[in-house]
């Protein structure tokens, strides 16, 4: 199902973020969102997720989202595998979750409490979790924060491999690092 935003208007106090803004995300599309900070990338994603009600406008309903937020939002004290199982599956899926994660993280880190992992590793856990969850559309808010260039490459490949035909929209200010990727770039 396509995701349609129609006639969206939203402001924070005096500051107009969106005015009569329209956007269509085609089912299975791969979208990049780039704009200077403060222009509403996070706001747009939060509106899509249903965490923020816009002042006006309509948004397609009934879409299941999974997401990488600006902050990692991992369950404290739980392992990387547990983070995945929290959003889908149960004990019987432990091995599958570990296999899934091993495409992005070293094997010996998968069962450690996430607090003991580095910032970049925690970021990758959050990314893997969004892709592991059952959803129609994956939203990622600055997913590459804190990743060095080599890891970023590996992470982009992982995202492209694991999105499995789902619509994907990610915001980033590092567009130049992704020029060889098949993103359709949107502007706000």
């Amino acid at each position, binding site marked *: 199902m396509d995701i349609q935003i129609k006639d969206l208007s939203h402001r924070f106090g005096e500051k107009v973020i969106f005015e009569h803004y329209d956007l269509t995300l085609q089912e299975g599309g791969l979208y990049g969102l780039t704009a200077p900070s403060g222009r509403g990338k996070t706001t747009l994603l939060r509106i899509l997720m249903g965490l923020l009600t816009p002042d006006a406008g309509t948004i397609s309903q009934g879409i299941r*989202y*999974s*997401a990488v937020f600006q902050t990692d939002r991992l369950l404290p004290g739980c392992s990387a595998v547990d983070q995945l199982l929290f959003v889908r599956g149960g004990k019987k899926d432990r091995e599958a979750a570990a296999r899934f994660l091993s495409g992005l993280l070293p094997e010996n880190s998968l069962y450690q409490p996430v607090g003991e992992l580095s910032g970049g590793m925690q970021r990758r856990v959050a990314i893997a979790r969004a892709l592991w969850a059952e959803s129609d559309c994956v939203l990622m808010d600055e997913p590459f924060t804190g990743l060095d260039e080599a890891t970023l490459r590996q992470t982009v490949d992982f995202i492209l491999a694991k999105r499995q035909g789902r619509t994907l929209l990610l915001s980033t200010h590092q567009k130049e690092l992704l020029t060889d990727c098949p993103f359709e770039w949107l502007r706000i």
Partner: protein
Amino acid sequence: MKPAKSQRRYLRGLLVTLFWLGVWQAVSMLVAKPVLFASPLDTVRALRTLVPTGVFWSAILGSLGRIALGFSLALVLGLLVGVAAFRFSLLRTLLSPLLTMVKTVPVASFIILVLVWFGSSSLTVIVAMLIVFPQIYFATLSGLGSTNRELQELAKVFRIPALRVAWQIYRPAMWPYLTGACASALGMSWKAGIAAEVIGNPANSIGEQMYLSKIYMDTAELFAWTLTVILLSTVFEKAVLWLLRRVGK
């Protein structure tokens, strides 16, 4: 070789205990009236006479059972009502004056009122409940209020089932508050429960036995009962906190 740290701490604890036992013995020798102030030896002797009797064990079972029942009921009710009040602010507002009252009314007033209304048999249970309930209730509210908002949003976006959210997000946030409240409520439930028994004299209770010791001016036996209460309350507290920690992991 230097003894290990834990060994040294143990030794120090032992020495401190011996010191205060010595002080106790010295004071009792100074007072020199066993009727007024029993010595440690008198107390141990009284305890040795008590332990083999049926009265001792039925009093212990009676008091422990009633306080444990009151505590457990208050724990369950405090949690349930706390969760409901967190969810529905109207309930929270409605309950607020009542609970403030329960917290500020002197325990002795409760004991007498409960005695008049319900008699002595259910006295300990009700008093222990009244003492523990507000603590658990307020701890539940603060604990739930401290839950990480970002994780709540995450659960909403990913459509995580409510039970899983309760267990994985709300429970860990609430647990430190709950164990803290339990630790203080446990001791208080024993103090208030035994006080209620001394006033209300329910059958098969430690309080009743303490009251009898007072009537017969048997200070050694009173000390022996006190020692028993301290031991029981400590073991009970440790057991409940251990259990809570297990569930909280």
